[in-house]
């Protein structure tokens, strides 16, 4: 069952990636940043699944997945906030985040532990950024003379918001959930829920990309 859930989760992710690959050089602005995050996400998920299927502990991947993923997401949001937020604000934020990641791995966690604190912090940051993106989108909707063609971006933002807001609590207790004291069934149920949230996020990406690929939003070569 968890294996099936994993495969089903990946279906919208791979489809979205396929759409992005088909028009690889056409994406502009936030979509360009999101494109790289999507590639990173797909490769990471495939690698993590491959390792899990081979019964190899894939937790060390998290120590690259979390900081790199966060930096790419910050790039994605920076591209959306371009006219509203100086780039150095998110830049400084990311430097501090990366410093905390380094401190976490150096002083607190080992490579074979779940990085609860860093993942929780990442989720808090993404929730804040996505809420800011919501507010920005409302302001644009109230001011722009033409109907905004940003529905696709809103779906992407919603996907990230739903995933990180819902998983916040799971990430916070993630290290505990990996504890041997946890019965397998309980841990599995918890991670199954995580897969459901992932599936919702990827579905939002799929819908967002699909909407963006419809005229007049269709990126031109």
């Amino acid at each position, binding site marked *: 069952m968890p294996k099936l859930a994993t495969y089903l989760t990946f279906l919208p992710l791979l489809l979205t990636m396929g759409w992005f690959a088909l028009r690889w050089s056409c994406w502009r602005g936030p979509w360009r940043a999101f494109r790289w995050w999507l590639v990173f996400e797909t490769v990471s998920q495939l690698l993590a699944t491959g390792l899990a299927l081979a019964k190899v502990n894939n937790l060390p991947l998290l120590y690259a997945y979390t900081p790199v993923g966060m930096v790419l997401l910050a790039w994605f949001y920076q591209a959306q906030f371009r006219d509203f937020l100086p780039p150095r604000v998110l830049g400084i934020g990311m430097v501090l985040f990366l410093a905390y990641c380094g401190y976490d791995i150096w002083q607190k966690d080992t490579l074979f532990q779940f990085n609860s604190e860093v993942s929780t912090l990442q989720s808090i940051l993404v929730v804040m950024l996505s809420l800011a993106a*919501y507010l920005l*989108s*409302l302001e644009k*909707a*109230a*001011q*722009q*003379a033409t*109907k*905004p063609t940003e529905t696709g971006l*809103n779906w992407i933002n*919603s996907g990230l*918001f*739903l995933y990180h*807001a*819902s*998983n*916040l*609590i*799971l990430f916070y*207790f993630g290290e*505990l*959930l990996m*504890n041997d*004291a*946890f*019965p397998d069934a*309980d*841990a599995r*149920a*918890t991670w199954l*829920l995580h897969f459901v*949230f992932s599936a*919702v996020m990827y579905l939002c990406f799929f819908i967002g990309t699909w909407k963006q690929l419809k005229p007049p939003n269709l990126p031109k070569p």
Partner: protein
Amino acid sequence: METAEATQLTQTLIPFAFVVFVIAVGVALLFQKFREKLIRQRLEKEELKNQHQLDLLRSAIAVQEEERKRFARDLHDELSAVLAVGKMNSEQLALRVADPAVATEVQELQHLFQNSLQATRQISHALMPPELVSLGLEQALRNLARRLTAQHITPALQLDAATEKMPWETQLALYRMCSELMHNTLKHAEATEIHLQLQIAEAHYRLEYHDNGVGLPAPLEAPGLGLKNLEARASALGGVVHTGNRPEGGFFASVQLPLLPTSTP
């Protein structure tokens, strides 16, 4: 951690995470609804603004036409009458003058009255062509085209639309637009032919105009006053205008006006 404690934590964690998920979905949906409402409100506001601008444009054109009509009537009824009396008096005076030098001056005065009368009539007709009022659009357009023949331009008119059933506003707008287009051809195009077609298609009056002249300058500059007037007149009646250069050379204009209920001048 004991297994019982772990199970209890899981039993709390899963519903809690699910509740957070539901709240997050609610936030996302609420945002979406709010955003749609904002967009709808903005579009409604823009629609109202556009409607207001259209109303202003319509009344500006109506006032302009009314002024033209009044001015044409005043020229015809008052100034022309005074000039006609002046001309008549000068003719009477010419009969009574014996001195040849004075007679020549009186004759010049007569010519002056005659020319002024003719110019007044021309201005009056240009302001509000009597043939448009009395004979309708078709005849007025044919007269306009006939004037081009004198300038060595061959007109080809195809008037398929029942122009006599057209509302007065549409007739007047089409007449003014054709007049503007022909004037532009005459002034700028160095053309030898014009083609004008008026028909009813898809619940619209459609005017197609083209000449075989030099066309619009390339790269296209901002539209001149004439083309702007054309657009304003079409917009005031809820119509559209497309202008440009034809691939085979020359200028084209395509005007589409909605069918409106019949009205009189």
